């Protein structure tokens, strides 16, 4: 590509330009002239992100945390750019490598501009500019660091497109340095964080979905994001749906009793959003998405229950396997009583058909603390400010036992109402 502007010195046939150099006057004295080798072409050949997170694996096919870390440089001539994740409100920095022809071209000073009309998912074009000024160019390979000069994105968004590069030199004019193509920026709130246990892993597919969903929340407030995300699910289910591939262990999205862990944890839940999931799976998905985009705040999946010995509300770590009232039993007159939290009104002595009243070992919530505010998000089962309010999702803390009718129907008998909740 040749220069297209400026007024370069007159070139001689060899391509060298004449230059007046310091010396005596023209009154018969010697005039020293040298010919400069003119730059005829500047071509971007390599682009490397310097300020990205470089944590993302290249699996864009499925929900597994597999694949290889995207390689650097992200772009070389003739290829499409590798995706990157980058924190919002942070200047994007790039290392650029140019091929300057001819190889023996003399040095010049140039300013680099990268014009980036990047598309949002809704096809809006946002215009960004990268630049590096007063850079030395000479024949051969030239490396330059450029930075984003326009205002950095201030929210989570995916930006895609090409960047058109040009170099304006002081003495060789301006050059179209070509375009780096296929940029795919996942702008996050901060550095992505691995979710705990089953949802661990930062991948292109997970990042793509997470950025898309968090961007839809249209807020940088973690509480608003959590609420938006959990509300993608219309409710919960404990019933396995045949429409969801068995390998995902719907609706709990983890393995139990002979099942095999899918490796994808709760990530696929959004792909099968119509089939919804268990509340704990929903909030595991919410947490994973928020961590994937580096959402600030402290997040944990907790279980909340009440202790029948004293009625006090307790809280434990779901990931650590805390089961609430799961194994809280006692034997009374030879019968095993089980403690539970009922979600409908019951009275002592009631015989309950299976399914007519919900019995719960705990309520699973996403506990999010940010900005001095703590909330318990119940995955569609309500949002609460304290664990004591979470427990009001239930109507009573009770003891029950199992009975069987002679016609073989299993039922529950309410043995003792320990505490009721308004």
């Amino acid at each position, binding site marked *: 590509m040749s220069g297209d502007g400026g007024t370069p010195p007159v070139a001689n046939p060899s391509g060298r330009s004449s230059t007046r150099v310091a010396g005596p006057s023209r009154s018969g004295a010697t005039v020293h002239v040298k010919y400069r080798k003119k730059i005829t072409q500047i071509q971007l050949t390599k682009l490397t992100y310097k300020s990205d997170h470089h944590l993302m694996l290249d699996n864009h096919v499925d929900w597994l945390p597999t694949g290889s870390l995207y390689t650097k440089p992200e772009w070389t001539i003739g290829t499409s750019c590798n995706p990157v994740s980058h924190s919002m409100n942070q200047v994007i920095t790039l290392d650029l490598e140019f091929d300057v022809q001819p190889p023996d071209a003399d040095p010049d000073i140039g300013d680099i501009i990268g014009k980036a009309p990047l598309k949002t998912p809704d096809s809006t074009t946002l215009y960004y500019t990268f630049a590096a000024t007063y850079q030395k160019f000479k024949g051969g390979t030239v490396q330059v660091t450029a930075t984003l000069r326009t205002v950095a994105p201030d929210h989570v968004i995916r930006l895609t497109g090409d960047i058109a590069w040009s170099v304006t030199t002081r003495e060789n004019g301006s050059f179209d340095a070509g375009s780096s193509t296929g940029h795919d920026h996942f702008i996050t709130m901060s550095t992505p964080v691995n979710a705990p246990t089953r949802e661990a892993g930062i991948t292109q597919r997970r990042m793509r979905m997470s950025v898309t969903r968090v961007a839809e929340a249209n807020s940088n407030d973690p509480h608003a994001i959590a609420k938006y995300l959990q509300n993608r699910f219309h409710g919960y289910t404990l019933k396995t749906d045949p429409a969801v591939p068995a390998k995902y262990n719907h609706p709990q999205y983890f393995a139990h009793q002979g099942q095999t862990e899918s490796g994808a944890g709760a990530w696929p839940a959004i792909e099968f959003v119509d089939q919804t999931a268990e509340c704990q799976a929903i909030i595991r998905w919410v947490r994973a998405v928020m961590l994937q985009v580096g959402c600030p705040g402290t997040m944990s999946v907790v279980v909340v229950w009440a202790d029948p010995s004293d009625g006090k509300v307790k809280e434990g770590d779901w990931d650590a396997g805390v089961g609430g009232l799961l194994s809280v039993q006692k034997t009374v007159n030879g019968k095993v009583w089980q403690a539970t939290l009922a979600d409908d009104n019951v009275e002592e002595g009631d015989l309950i058909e299976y399914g007519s009243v919900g*019995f719960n070992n705990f309520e699973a919530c996403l506990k999010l603390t940010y900005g001095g505010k703590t909330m318990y998000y119940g995955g569609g*089962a309500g949002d609460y400010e304290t664990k004591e309010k979470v427990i009001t999702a239930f109507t009573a803390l009770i003891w029950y036992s199992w009975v069987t009718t002679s016609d073989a129907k299993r039922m529950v008998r309410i043995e003792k109402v320990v505490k009721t909740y308004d």
Partner: protein
Amino acid sequence: MTGASIVASFCGILALAAISQPPQTSGRKSMSNSSPVELTDDFIGAWLNMIDRAQTSWTPQPDLKALPDGAAVQQDSEKWCGIFFSPQANPRAANPVALIATHNATADTADIIRYDYAATPFRFRLYETVDFALLSIEEGADILSLSPEKRVSAVQAVAAQVLQPAPPHNAGASSERLWPFAFPKAIEDGARFSTDESQIPEAMPTWASRVDGGLRHGHLYFLCFKKRESGDGRVILLNSHHWFDGAAWAPYRQPKRR
């Protein structure tokens, strides 16, 4: 013989409770009504008797998906059969394919699937409800033809062939991962045994916490319980009369009543 009398003869009626029908179909019953209901602590016996009561009403059902909630029923059956039984005894893997029949719930019977199939040297009949799977070995395990001292080892040998191996923590010192059945002194027709009869199926940690067996009508059987789990903390108690129509699951897939 009525169902009630069968229960009485089998295990004795343990309690008589007066319960009422709910105003709608809430399933709530108070103790104040005069309708008597017999309660028993012998739920195994009650289930066995229920299967006897169902014997007169079976409909061939080659494709379970034809049931109202058939896809889910089939998936549930496939899942649990795979968990409970060895590939040899899994009706879903039978060749030739198992003959399937269904029994729709009545006032005193649950929805039941029956599989008839064979795998040398056995011929099996499997009864499955939303709560349990009862594998009856109709041929190939004539325990009662053996001398009494050989019956326990014969039962263990069959169990090892038809059940999945016991998890290591259940099998104890057994390197062959045998199920730790506690056998009665005499194994005769009507005998029952269990790996841990203190476990309540709905409350035990996993399905492997308890497996039962026995001899019934001369046939050896094994009984496995569908211990359902929820990561949500919700206790899954399914109405066995509404497996096929999906209503058993209705309380577990609605927005929470909050």
